[in-house]
């Protein structure tokens, strides 16, 4: 197994070390922690509490007639978890999967109190940030843009901008296209 599975605790430890170095970002009352990852030279973040684990890419069982960004389902200790390629989801050029391709497994609470687990294929894990609430900005009004719905917030970390993902929206899969009568 080439898994580089990391537990939540590990990530948190990392973040503690990080806080030591970056005094300006030190955690105070109104701050949250985010795990960020890279895609196409952009940095995206998700709430660290929603991250279940990070694992290496392994072939998934293909789901018939699923949208092409759904790579299939994997067995996560007995639970069937769908894996979504975030590049394809956002309409970016897809990349070859290799030994360093990473799957971020997140658990998302939906509005109806349901919880769903999903794996996100990303280019690479970037960092863990602790960010104060005032450093978060609402997404700019780009509603006509196709991917705007996936953006929850923007946040500034030093000079970089990180896009916080709206995970519940990522959970909405388009209905599989029904096959018409076989020819």
């Amino acid at each position, binding site marked *: 197994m080439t898994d580089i599975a990391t537990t939540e605790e590990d990530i948190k430890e990392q973040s503690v070390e990080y806080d030591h170095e970056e005094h300006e970002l030190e955690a105070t009352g109104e701050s949250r922690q985010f795990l960020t990852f890279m895609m196409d030279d952009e940095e995206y973040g998700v709430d660290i509490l929603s991250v279940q684990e990070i694992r290496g890419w392994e072939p998934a069982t293909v789901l018939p007639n699923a949208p092409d960004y759904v790579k299939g389902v994997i*067995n996560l200790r007995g639970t*069937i978890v769908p894996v979504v390629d975030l590049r394809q989801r956002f309409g970016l050029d897809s990349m070859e999967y290799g030994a360093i391709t990473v799957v971020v497994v997140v658990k998302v609470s939906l509005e109806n109190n349901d919880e769903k687990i999903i794996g996100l294929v990303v280019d690479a894990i970037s960092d863990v940030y602790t960010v104060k609430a005032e450093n978060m900005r609402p997404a700019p009004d780009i509603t006509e843009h196709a991917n705007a719905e996936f953006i929850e917030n923007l946040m500034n970390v030093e000079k970089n901008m990180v896009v916080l993902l709206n995970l519940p929206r990522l959970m909405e899969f388009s209905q599989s296209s029904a*096959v018409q009568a*076989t020819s």
Partner: protein
Amino acid sequence: MSIDLSQFFEVFFEESFEGLDIMEAELLALTPGTHDLETINTIFRAAHSIKGGSGTFGFTVVSNFTHVLETLLDQIRDGRRALEQQHIDLLLLSVDCLRDLLSALKAEEVPDEAVANKLKADFESILADGVCGEYAANESEDKPSSTQSSGWAIKFFPFPYLFKTGNEPLYMLHELEALGKLTITADLSHIPEFSKLVPDECHVGWDIELHGNIEKEQIEEIFEWVLDDCDFSLNPIGEVTPSAEVEDTKEESEPSIEPPAQVSEEKKETKPTPTQAAKAPSAVKKGETNSIRVAIDKVDSLINMVGELVITQAMLCQLAEREFDENNVNMLQEGLAQLSHNTRDLQESVMRIRMLPISFVFSRFPRLVRDISQKLNKKVELKLIGEQTELDKTVMEKLSDPMVHLVRNSLDHGLESPEARVAAGKDETGSVTLNAFHQGGNIVIEIIDDGAGLNSEKIRAKAIENHIISENEELSESEVHDLIFRPGFSTADEVSDISGRGVGMDVVRRNIQELNGSIEVNSVAGEGSTFRIRLPLTLAILDGQLVRVADHTYIIPLISIIESLQVDIEKVNNVGGSVEVLRLRDEYIPILRLYQLFKHENAITELEHGLLVVVETDNEKVGLLVDDLLAQQQVVIKSLENNYQRIEGISGATILGDGRVSLIVDIAGLIKLAGLKKPGKQGLSIDSLIQEMA
């Protein structure tokens, strides 16, 4: 020292609800004017144990209410009162009321006594009239429970063993004292001579006069625990005590007017009566626990199975200790075969524990049908067939609501009024049949009525009105019938409180689909309708055939596979230019290419090189083209919908031995996916084409 009674609540509620079910069933079996002693006795016993239990646990609302109910039953049982329809109705209502009270108590809410009080008043008014005087005077129980008197004469003569039951008469006397002014006369006539006196036996009795405006129940409550262990009588002061037995003691007791004897004084330190514990229902909150009653033979077989498993395990362990050579390999294989055999048996036994007879659902219908038919002024006969058919408890729980809905619909919309039936040349009494049976790996439940059937014209008109279909849409009869399962559809001329709120059949279908089941309707105008529900027996495990399509592994439920064969290309025809059919013996079987439906590349596309798995669902056969057959194995069904969504043609997923995920094929879904079947239509859409060809 008080006993925490709350730990017994669960059992009490369970038993009480069971008792109520029994009462209800038996009440429905009663016919006014008859005197079926056995049935009445059964009802009486059920009521009595509820009364006893609720008294013990301090649920006085319930016990008081059950008491009046019991009084009426008692009179009927003794033949002092003829059974009337009115009584049955009232008793049924009170069963409902008790159920509500108990549910409220179970949920630790304050029960609403309004209904209970009203019913109690009804009972009392029945009890108040019509009873022959001599009986009324004779048994105190016959009197309305709220009887009050200026005072009571109580005779209390415990049996000698009373102390051994942990009861202390003195406490009772103290409690009585708290109610009002008390005059106690001890009856020492039964005390043996000193040499024969056993210190822990009670030989003292008491004549008690209690003055004041006191309710009878209050007194009875005090003596509730000892009623079986003493001679006890309770009479309003001034009345003659009729019981011969009591009169005897009275005569004997008159001469002695002394304080309570030494014997009872000595016993003062005995532990408090449990009555006190009962009076303070524990406030401990506890979560709703679901329990299941299992027949003992099922548990026994489980234990046997575990025994075998242990033996196999021991055998394998022994094998592992030896030097490894070729002989051992054989033994190892044997051992493993046995182990898998054991595991499978064990699994079956465990599953059986969850299986309950469907009568748990069916049993509520006699009542429902009775109530509704009365309300609608229709005459209905309900037939139950296959009540012992077993199915999974979880399936059963979710099945109940849809079935209630369907039965209500049958009564309300399906069956005609008696006049209309006679005019149509039918028997005045309509019939509704609930039929359950196993078919393959499914349980099938039919709800059949011999009413008017579905009115296609009306359904069509309504569907057009509600914009479900367009005006010029061509629909077959069964397609029209299927429209009733569409959301927002209701054909009732008038909205009644029984059915016809416009939410309904679509919810029914959705509920059943959530259980991986299906529902369909067959209806012949003027002759009636049949709703057929098909459900998997269990939601957890199935026997699967693993098949390969390209480099993907799928699982086909073994139960639906009829045969697997290599295709003789000469027997394949193209029907209507679109669907391939294989002539297999006398049947024509449409071929579905799995790789095509699932859009997989690199699969075998030539029919003669692949394998055809012939499967059947809903009496329709299709052949699935796969690359290869792999192993057969039992698979645990995992939901795809938990984290993803429904996929057409796939019923779920499972995890194979090597940890990979494999998908389970849903045959009915595949047929739909292939466009071979129109919703609600009987048979495949190519059937007519095939018939032409044949």
